[in-house]
């Protein structure tokens, strides 16, 4: 299964809509990292509203992906962690999901835009349409 990566200018949106197998999760990780590098994305929002189970493996994939994307130079926010997923993750181990989070995609995008603005490299956006 391929997870669609949507582009909004220099921001990428990924919404994980289905229960992923481990292989899907690894595929998602490499697809996203490649896409971020390809368009030199300034921000990435990963929406996991639809995930009702995030085990330690999936948490690690999400965390690692966020770190990788960060290493490339993009801002990352994880959106829509479900309340019971949050409870389960903390019960299992405190540091399983350490990335920046937002309630939903809308708030996530606001956070990304604000962070990108304070970085001061937003002028890169102007080259976007050439």
């Amino acid at each position: 299964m391929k997870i669609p990566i949507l582009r909004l200018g220099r921001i990428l949106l990924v919404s994980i809509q289905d229960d992923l197998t481990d292989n899907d999760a690894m595929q998602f990780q490499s697809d996203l990292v490649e896409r971020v590098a390809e368009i030199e994305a300034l921000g990435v929002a990963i929406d996991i509203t639809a995930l009702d189970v995030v085990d330690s493996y999936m948490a690690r994939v999400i965390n690692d992906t966020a770190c990788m994307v960060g290493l490339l130079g993009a801002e990352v926010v994880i959106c829509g962690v479900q309340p019971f997923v949050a409870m389960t993750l903390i019960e299992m181990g405190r540091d399983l999901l350490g990335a920046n989070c937002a309630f939903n995609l809308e708030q996530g995008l606001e956070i990304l835009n604000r962070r990108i603005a304070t970085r001061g490299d937003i002028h890169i956006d102007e080259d976007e349409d050439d």
Partner: protein
Amino acid sequence: MTEAFASEFIPIRTPTDIVTARRAARTLCERLGFGKADQTRLATAVSELTRNVIQYAREGSCQISDTSDAGYRRIRVLVEDHGPGIPDITLALTDGYSTSGGLGAGLPGTRRLVDDFGIESAPGLTRITIALQKPL
């Protein structure tokens, strides 16, 4: 009346079976009237244990059963494999310990999610039982 002693046996051979097993766990949990929090706990615990099967033993099985009695609504899950076994169970249940390069949260984390956790392991047979229950 609920259909007592409902039980489902899921062979664990590929990563897709992990998804099948955790969905089955959630479904039975929901059917027995456990809340969303417990459904998520059990589904996550089953996901961790069945992943260990694939990772360390390549294949095994997962049996999810309704073992409710007069006093308790209860789901018991038995995850079994014929892999190399866990050499040091105490160590494997220690937070942060991993032989696979993982986070080491799998077994100790799983134990914290459930009401009952039992483990026996020797080369050739590892059996882990977990249960979630609530008073009727």
